[in-house]
């Protein structure tokens, strides 16, 4: 399946849900916040939201700022 993650086109195998993608990228437990095709997901939706070929995924988190 081909996804566009943070502007990068990537081919992922074994990934079905948003949770799977976060684990595949080894970003689990790091406070990832996900937007799928410009729709913001709550944390509780990560496990149940299924990805499709061509989906646009934005993964953000908190960084230092004032």
């Amino acid at each position, binding site marked *: 399946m081909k996804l566009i*993650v*943070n502007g*990068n086109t990537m081919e992922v195998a074994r990934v079905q849900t948003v949770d799977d993608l976060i684990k595949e*990228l*080894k*970003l689990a*437990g*790091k*406070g*990832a*916040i*996900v*937007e799928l095709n410009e729709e*913001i*997901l*709550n*944390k509780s939706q990560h496990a149940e939201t299924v990805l499709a070929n061509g989906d646009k995924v*934005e*993964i*953000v*988190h*908190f*960084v*230092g*700022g*004032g």
Partner: protein
Amino acid sequence: MLKIGNHEFSSRLLLGTGKFPDFDVQKEAVNVSGTEILTFAVRRMNIFDPEQPNFLEKLDASKYTLLPNTAGAKTAEEAVRIAKLAKASGLCDMIKVEVIGDFKTLLPDPVETLRASEILLNEGFTVLPYASDDVLLAKKLEDLGVHAIMPGASPIGSGLGIINPLNISLIVEQATIPVIVDAGIGSPADAALAMELGADGVLLNTAVSGAEDPVKMAKAMKLAIEAGRLGYEAGRIPKRRYATASSPLEGMSV
């Protein structure tokens, strides 16, 4: 007590988390400052670096109320998106609305700030707009129903201190919601002045993170804000053009 929306705080210092030399210094400075509110930004994760530090874990963020900002937004819509991303973390309901209109001065865009604040209030956020020190803008934001107003002392990161104390005091005088002086604070004297003018709190970042000794400066800011607040509550003497003797003029032994 500082009350913002449904939140109550005993510290009147809000501390930003940008540009500290490292996470250990940051953690120590945050501890020493006594702050209960931390600000931060929302940015893309580096999806190619599983080793990137988890900012919240390093700070034990569960001990603090988190105040994400919408820095990076140039329009109300961009600010609303960032606010919603922050809220989707499930960790916070407060948002510092920051819509920058000019990238040389980093001054906030008043029209977009007003629009973003209105949308976010309708979405149920606790809204703290960072705004210029315009008295009427502060009034219009308060009329919208924002939970605190955060006028800038001077441009972000400039360290110029309060360049228009009259405006800050007029904003304080008319406000029935907390006024938090945000941005431009350089020294403890600036922070103390903000509090002496009647501000309910001060939000600062670079003044601490960019100091030669950030931990010591965090302590200095804590004390300055406490001193300024006490001074405001105590009521200072009026300024006079000529001297008035402190010692009795009668009873001199000659």
